[in-house]
Structure formats: structure tokens, C-alpha cells
């Protein structure tokens, strides 16, 4: 028995900081392909193990993670490389602000051969530990099987926030957190039951944000840093289906305006300056909550080509406490160079606006040309994040609390399904090579046909149980009212235009794919 215990102890010792070595090998000066592509990247210290597949053939593979003189051996099953979390965490903590080199060897007829190593630079900047996302098949068609889920970035754990088997199969999306805080979030649910769930630190509300004076319920949201207000757009959304596979689906607005929801008062307000005949949409507050940034394009008319719709970036000062609006100012005009801005997102530091740029339109998840761009508010320079971008769609994005990382959805793996990617931002605003969020099974992204839609970083898990959400949404939603101080003339823009559509059966926007 004693012998067995000794043997077990020795085995344990060897399984930890392993010193398994291949003494004799030859270097073949050949790059090894791995899936997902985790080669030469910067990773946050708290990331889960980067499990991967070796895309080569051999009788046997051997992999070492080398940090200084220490070698860590992951588990290898044929070409599948999986690192136990505890061992990985130990390695991460030791390698902070340093590089880990990944040595991959293959065994063939001529003995062990070593591929060129690649590295992982472990940044001390950790990333927010959770992200939430909508999971849905590509396109819009299987919208009756979707849900909002969350994943722990540190340990792969996935769980359900809410899925539509609990809400009669209705659509849901635009889950948005106030400053990544899972205690304060909102979620639109469409269909019956339908409405907007708003969870603040103190309350949870189920609202109907559609009024007689607005063309739709609130759509694209952004929380005011105080947590008291949410800026939203109201949109008349339509979708078309391309014959060209590069585009597949086109989503566009025939009208849109901006509103601000006062959560305490259950009241929305707007201004003639952001409810014009032009289309204003996708509002976002600056980190101080002084300005609402938004994108805008000219009024839609039936003679327009969808490919002629281009958005520029604007802002308007808005004092939420006193409900006073400033004037609209142009921030970034790209339409004149034949481009269109969408999804502007402020870094928490307030220095950068990360946005998606495309040739036209604002719903870019189906635009192959869509890329991420950074606008440096300090230098007033914008530039593409070339290291993070790909030849495929790079679109919806979210900043980490530290402003050092951003998470975005990209279709680079197969051109159809969006996947969550992470990229590091250095002190000069330069993004590093992006990598897909690791999963326990390295084949996960090869197998799953569903898209990770609208990924949002969170500082922790959403703790409100799904049953509470369900209970709430099956109650009658509270109707929001229109700010009585807003003169009806203020609604003479797109809102009035929407009258023409009032009886038309527009497609709910959440069915507009991913």
C-alpha cells in the first residue's frame, strides 16, 4: 500500500511542472498551423486555457509550454491540445508580462521534429471575466430558437441568462449593461410577451417603450453612466435578402430617431434636433454622460439605393438632469470618402471611439467589408485596426473596463458564423492580433453552426434568475409616457414620417440576423 502511495505521489509530481523532455529532435524550420489561430498573440492573464488543434499529421505530437526554464505539458489526444485549468492558471500567474513559448514536436519516421515555436505574451491587464451573447443560427430564420447566454472567460463555463423557450419563442437581443455591470442591464424581448426589461441596482422594470408619438419601441440602447437614463433609437427597420452570397442579408432603416428614457419616471424624451427627417440611430453616451454620440444619414426615400446610404458620426450635448439639449456637432464625416460609420463605442478611458466602418449602411454583420476602426479623440485621427481586422466581417464590439481589451464578433473562421474575438489595445491605441475566445473543446468552433451575436463584456455573471425574468415579462408592461415638455412639432421628423408606416407590418428588428 505504501508503495502505491509513493508511486501515486511520484506520478503527481511528474504531472505538474513536468520535466518531460525530448532530448533528441531536429528543427524543421516550418510554421505549424493550429486551430483556432492562437499563434503569437497577446493574452490577458485571466484567460482560460488556449486549447487548440494541431493542423498537421504525424504519428504522435508533443507540446511544451515553455516559460523561462519551466516546461508545462498539456494533455494531448491525437492532435487535440488541452491544458487543465489549474496548471494553466499557475503558468499564467508566473508568466505575467512575459512570453510563453509553445513548442510543438511531431514524431515521424525520422524521429522527433520540432516546428518553429510561437509565443503567447501574457499581459497583466486582465479582461472582464464574463461576456454575454445571443446565440442563434446564421441568418434570421431560426429566431424561434435563441437565447442570451453568458460565458466565464476564465474557465469556459457557460450558462443561460434567458432563452426564448421561456418566452414563447419570441425574439430577444440588444442586451446592454451599464459600464459592464451585470447588476444594471436591459434586454429587449419581442413578440408576445414583448417589451424592454430594465434592471437597475434598485429595481427591475418591464416597460413598453412604444408611445403614440414614436415610430417604434426603443431599439439600439446606451446607458447613461449614472444608470438613470438610457438613450435609444426608435427605428423603422426593414430587411432584404441578397442574391449575392457575400452579403446575404441587408438590414436598413426607413426611418429612425433618438429618444432618452428616464427610468425612474418611465418617461421618454427627445428633441427636434435628433428627431429630424434624417435618420439618427445607434446612440452612445460619452463616459462622463455629457454627450450623446450617434450616427446619422439622410432621409430614406424609395428612389434610394441601399448601397448609397452612408452614416457619419455626430454628437449632441444633453444634460439629463435638466433635460436640456445642445446643438448637433459633426464628429467624423466619412461619407465623403464613400464610407459609413456604425456602432460607435467609447473606451471607458474616454480617449477612443471604436467603431465599425463599411462601404454603406449601418447593420454590418452581413457586410464582408466591415472592419474595425479607432478614432483617437486626443489626436482626432482615425485608423483601421489592421492587426485585429480580417478579410471577413469584423463588427459588433465592446470595450473591457480597463480600456485595454475589446471583444468583437468576427466571421473570419468560416465567413458565415460570427465568433467572439479579443484584441489588446496598447498605450498608442494600436490593437494586437485578435484571437477567438477559447473553448474547452478546441473543435467547438468547427462544430457549432451558431453565431455568437452581439457579445458584451461583463464584470461578473448576471445573477437574476431566469424565472424572475419570465415572471416579469408575462406581466403587463408599464407604459412609458412621452415627455410633455416636448412639443409635438418636435416630432415632425422621422416620427411623423412613421405615420405612413403605422399600419404597415414592419419586421421586428431582432429578426434581422446576426
Amino acid at each position, binding site marked *: 500500500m505504501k508503495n502505491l502511495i509513493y508511486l501515486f505521489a511520484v506520478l503527481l509530481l511528474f504531472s505538474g511542472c513536468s520535466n518531460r523532455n525530448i532530448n533528441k529532435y531536429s528543427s524543421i524550420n516550418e510554421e505549424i498551423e493550429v486551430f483556432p489561430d492562437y499563434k503569437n498573440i497577446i493574452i490577458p492573464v485571466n484567460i482560460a486555457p488556449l486549447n487548440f488543434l494541431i493542423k498537421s499529421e504525424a504519428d504522435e505530437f508533443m507540446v511544451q509550454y515553455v516559460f523561462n526554464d519551466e516546461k508545462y505539458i498539456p494533455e494531448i489526444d491525437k492532435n487535440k491540445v488541452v491544458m487543465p485549468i489549474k496548471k494553466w492558471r499557475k503558468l499564467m500567474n508566473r508568466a505575467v508580462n512575459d512570453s510563453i513559448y509553445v513548442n510543438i514536436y511531431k514524431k515521424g519516421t525520422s524521429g522527433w521534429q520540432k516546428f518553429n515555436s510561437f509565443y503567447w505574451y501574457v499581459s497583466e491587464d486582465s479582461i472582464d471575466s464574463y461576456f454575454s451573447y445571443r*446565440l442563434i*443560427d*446564421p*441568418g434570421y*430564420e*431560426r429566431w*424561434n*430558437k435563441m*437565447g442570451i*447566454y453568458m460565458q466565464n472567460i476564465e474557465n469556459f463555463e*457557460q*450558462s*443561460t441568462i434567458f*432563452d426564448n*423557450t*421561456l*418566452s*414563447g*419563442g419570441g425574439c430577444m437581443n440588444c442586451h446592454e449593461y451599464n459600464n459592464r455591470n451585470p447588476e444594471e442591464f436591459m434586454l429587449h424581448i419581442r413578440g408576445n410577451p414583448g417589451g424592454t426589461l430594465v434592471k437597475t441596482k434598485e429595481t427591475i422594470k418591464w416597460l413598453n417603450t412604444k408611445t403614440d408619438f414614436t415610430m417604434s419601441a426603443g431599439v439600439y440602447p446606451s446607458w447613461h453612466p449614472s444608470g438613470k437614463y438610457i438613450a435609444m433609437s426608435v427605428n423603422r427597420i*426593414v*430587411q*432584404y*435578402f*441578397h*442574391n*449575392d*452570397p457575400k*452579403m*446575404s442579408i*441587408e438590414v436598413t432603416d426607413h426611418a429612425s430617431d433618438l429618444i432618452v428614457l428616464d427610468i425612474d419616471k418611465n418617461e421618454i424624451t427627445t428633441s427636434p434636433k435628433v428627431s429630424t427627417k434624417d435618420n439618427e440611430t445607434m446612440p452612445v453616451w460619452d463616459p462622463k454622460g455629457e454627450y450623446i454620440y450617434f450616427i446619422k444619414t439622410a432621409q430614406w426615400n424609395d428612389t434610394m439605393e*441601399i448601397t448609397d446610404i452612408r452614416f457619419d458620426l455626430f454628437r449632441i450635448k444633453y444634460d439629463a438632469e435638466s433635460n436640456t439639449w445642445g446643438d448637433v456637432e459633426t464628429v467624423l464625416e466619412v461619407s465623403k470618402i464613400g464610407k459609413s460609420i456604425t456602432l460607435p463605442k467609447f473606451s471607458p478611458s474616454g480617449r477612443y471611439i471604436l467603431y465599425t466602418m463599411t462601404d454603406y449602411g449601418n447593420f454590418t454583420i452581413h457586410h464582408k467589408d466591415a472592419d474595425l476602426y479607432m478614432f483617437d479623440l486626443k489626436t482626432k485621427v482615425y485608423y483601421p485596426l489592421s492587426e485585429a481586422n480580417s478579410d471577413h466581417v469584423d463588427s459588433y464590439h465592446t470595450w473591457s473596463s480597463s480600456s485595454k481589451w475589446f471583444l468583437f464578433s468576427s466571421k473570419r*473562421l*468560416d*465567413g*458565415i*458564423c460570427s465568433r467572439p474575438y479579443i484584441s489588446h489595445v496598447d498605450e498608442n491605441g494600436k490593437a494586437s492580433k485578435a484571437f477567438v475566445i477559447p473553448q474547452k473543446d478546441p473543435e467547438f468552433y*468547427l*462544430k*457549432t*453552426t*451558431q453565431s455568437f451575436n452581439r457579445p458584451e463584456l461583463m464584470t461578473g455573471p448576471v445573477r437574476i*434568475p*431566469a*424565472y424572475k425574468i*419570465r415572471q416579469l415579462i*408575462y406581466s403587463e408592461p408599464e407604459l412609458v409616457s412621452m415627455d410633455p415638455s416636448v412639443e409635438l412639432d418636435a416630432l415632425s421628423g422621422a416620427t411623423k414620417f412613421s405615420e405612413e408606416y403605422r399600419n404597415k407590418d414592419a*419586421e421586428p428588428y431582432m429578426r434581422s440576423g446576426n
Partner: protein
Amino acid sequence: MKKLGEKLLVVYPYIFAFLYFIILMFIETSSLYAFQNKSFLTTREYFSPFLEYSGGLFDYLGLFFSEMLKFNFPGALLYALITLASILLYKNLLIRTGVNKNLLLISAYPFIFIFSLTFNHFHPLSMNLKMLFTLSVLYIILGFSSKRTAYQILSTIFFVILWYLCGLEFFIIAFVYLLIHTTINKVLLKNTAAFIISAIIILLLNTYVYYTPLVQTLSRVNEYGSQLPRVLFFAYVMFMLVPITAIIKLNISINEILQILIIIVIGYLIGLRSFSRVNHTISKFLDAGNKNEYSKILHMRKQTEINTRIISAYTNLALINKRNLLDQMFIYNQGAGKDGLFPSREFDNFNAYSNMKLCFNLGLSNQTVRWAMEATTYFGFNAEILKHLILAHLVNDEIKVAEKYNLMLENTIFNNKQKKNIGKILADYKNGTLDRLIIEKKRLKPKEDFFTGNRNDQEIFSWASKANNNPKAFECYIAACLLENDFEDVKKVILNFRALGYKRLPIHVQEALCLFYAEGQEPPDLHGFQIDQNIMQDCAWFFHTISRYSENLQLAHDELVQRTGNTYWFYLYYISPVTRARNE
């Protein structure tokens, strides 16, 4: 024996329930909250996929019963017969073991709980309704365990009528019935109190468990189709092991077992008739379409009086494939108008499937993907849908996505022929050799981009009007024009028939062009084509007959239908939804 019976009744279901949750939830992590398939066919092709995975047979049986129990008198009768069979079993069990009825009820809780969970597709309300319903049924079974046969029969009849009248809301009526019943039969008063308390306890328990994180986590993506019927029948069979065990122990006579079996078999046969006739017919068309049996579709269409837009769509799909659309389409009822050619989007229907096949036929790969995905909401990722997804993505040069769907296809046990064919096409593609089918679809695929909206597929047809390399699409366009009473457009594209190599104009096109002569309008340029003299004569006769009846179409109908019922003119005047809408 009594002790043994009590042990069996109480211990076994609870152990089972425990194992059920442990095994099913941890091994089958997608066991709950999936959507259930809605169609059921008795064909071999329908049946075989259910053998492809563990528990599939339970799914099959579950689908049969869940479909059958939904509606209709025969379904209710079958349920009643099964109930009666259960009564016989339990009556014997009760009499021979002397087990307390309340104990029996307690023993049923796990089953009721699992039953209600498995039937919960949408929300706890539905679950609780069904749970209460089941509880009521079980309670009635106990009530039925009276030795008075006449009373049993009367109760059964009453039960059937209530079911027929009330459907799923029956449980409310059943509850009222119970109260009346127990008032008459005071013996059961005690049990009624037990029933109410039990119902409350189970409601609370049910609601609590439903919302636990474990169960919520299980609502994670389920890619592998419905598990619900399997769960139900797994639970049911396991639970029935209790009385079955008792039967073995108690030596129930062969006669009794035979009686029960006969009842179940008769019930099954009756149940087959309880399916919605329309849905069942549609399913047959779908099944034939699945196997590309287009002659069979046309044959079935002639045999059935049922005419829905989906059946029309399959008929037209068959005609398109046989290249007879413009010669024969008005032989069949086209009362669905253009919707019978390309059904507009509607959820929970079969149209997505036919549209998928139609779009693939026409070389519209994006549209094929779109409709295939729509079809999965109804049918799941079955082999036929996967095949279309793979091929359409290959036409779009999206090999990585095609490989994902191929992986799903590969993971099925059957469909070997499909797997082999698709596997070869994929391998060829990767080697740079395109399969003939892919080449053909790429050739047919429209080179220009165009949009289609959600509810309006006009764009597809207007594209097809120019499709001079795609005769099937062109024929669809012409058919759509005819179905929409738009023969003016037909006149404009006659030259395209020449470009596509037609030796003569299709019959229905000739019929449409006759209208210009019959109505005294400027005759169209036929670009060298001619209109058959018989068609001209029939056309003249058609309008002459109408004028003979002083333009009274109702009076002229019977005479016209004899000679010209299969013509475009008849469709135009009597069947076309456009005409009907205009007249109304």
C-alpha cells in the same frame, strides 16, 4: 404480497425519478425544453431516422401519441381505451395486493412530475395545466377502479365526450367532474382532499424545479432535435414496469394481457385516423418530394380532393421538374394563385421545405439556404435539409460552412447514400474538381445581385424573366404571371422562348395569348411561333358559351368545366384569387 406491492409502488418510481434526472440531465444535457416535431408519418422513410440514435424509438412512439392525443374524437377514444387498459391493470393490482389507493397516488407523483416536465414546451403554465390534467386522469382512474363495470363504461363515455369537447382545458372540467363524482360517491371524498393538496404541492415543486439553475442551464442549445417524446416514453415505460412487475408476480392471466393488448392495438389503429387529414396528406406530398418522386406527387394530386397552397406548391414543383409546368399546370387546381408556386413565408408550416427545393432547382443558392434554415424550425436538421445546405454553400464557395453541415450529416447513422454522395462532392470540391451538380447550379445562379423582401418575392420572378440560361426559372416567371392574371407580361417575353430553344409555345402560354384575339386587342408578335388551331377554337367556344349565358358565369360554369376546365381561361374567370378578390 401487499408489502411487496407497496414497496414497488413507492420506492421504484422515486428511484427511477432520481436516476432519470441524474442520467438524463448529465449525460443528455439537452434533454429538456426543446421543440417537438409536429408531423408524423407511417412510412418507412419517416421511421428510419428514429433508429439512428439511442431512444429514437421512444421519440417515434412519443410523436405518434403526442400527435394523436392533441385533437379529434378518435384520439380521445384511444386515450380512453388506454385509460381503460390502465384501469384493468391497476384494478387487478389493487384487488390482488390490497394496496392503499392514496399510496398509489403518491407513487404516481414522480411520473406526473416527469410527464409534465416533458410536455412543457413553452412555459410553466402549459406544464402545470398538463400536470394537473394528468393528475386528474390518474385520479379518475382510481375512481374508475370500482368493481361496477357499468359505471366504468359510463365514466369512460363521459370522459371521451369531455375530452372531445374541451381538449386540453379538459382538466378544469375533469376537476369539476371529480367534485360531482365524489359528492355522489362519498367513499372518495378523502381522496379529493388528497388530490387538491397533492396538486398544490406538485405545482409548487414543479415551479421551483423548473426555475433551478440546473434546469435553466439545460435550456442551452439543442442541436439534436427533440428529446421530449423520448423522455416521456422513457418515463412512462419505466413507470409501467411497476404494474408489469406486479403482473409477473401476480400471474395475471394471458387472457387479461391479451385483452389489454387488443385494446391498445385497436386504439393504435383508431389513432392513425385521428391525425389531421390535411396535415397527413401534406406530409405524404412532402415525403414524396423528399425522394424526388415527382410522378407520385402528380398521381397523389389527382387522387386527393385536398388542395392547399403547399400541395399546390409540390404539384408545381413536380411539374417544374418534369418541365411540364406551362403545359399542364391548369390541369390541377391552382386556387392558391402565385402562393401555390412559391408560398409566402409563414411560420410552422411546410412551405419552407418546398421553397427550399424550388430555389435549389432554380439555382438560387442564397434563397436555398434561407428556406432550408426556415425549414429546420419545423423539421430540424434532417438529412434532406442538410444536403441542401451543404450543396448551396458549396455553390456559394463557402466550403467551411458546408463542412460543418456535412459533419452533422456524417453523425447520422443512416443516410449512407446521401453521405457518400455529399462526401464525394465535398472531396472533389477540395481537390478543385467541381461536381456536375455544383457546376450546373453555379451556371444557373444569377450573376447579378438583387434583393428579395420578406413577404414579397416578386423580385425573384422579375429576375427570372431575364434568365435566358435558366429555362426552369423562366417558366416559373411565366407561370407566376399567369397566376397573377398578368398575361400582358407574357406577351413581352415571347422572344425568350425562342432564345431558350422552344419548338412551340407551351399550351397555357398559347391560351393566354389567345385572349388578345378573343378580346379584340392588338395581337402579340409571336416571333414565328403559332397558336394551335384547336386552342383558338376552344378559346372562341369558351367566350361564346359565356355570351350564350348572357355573361352569367355561374350558369355557364358546368358547361365550361367539361371542355375547358383545364385551361387558363377557366382559371382566369373562375379560380384565380386575383379575379375572386376583384369580384368581391
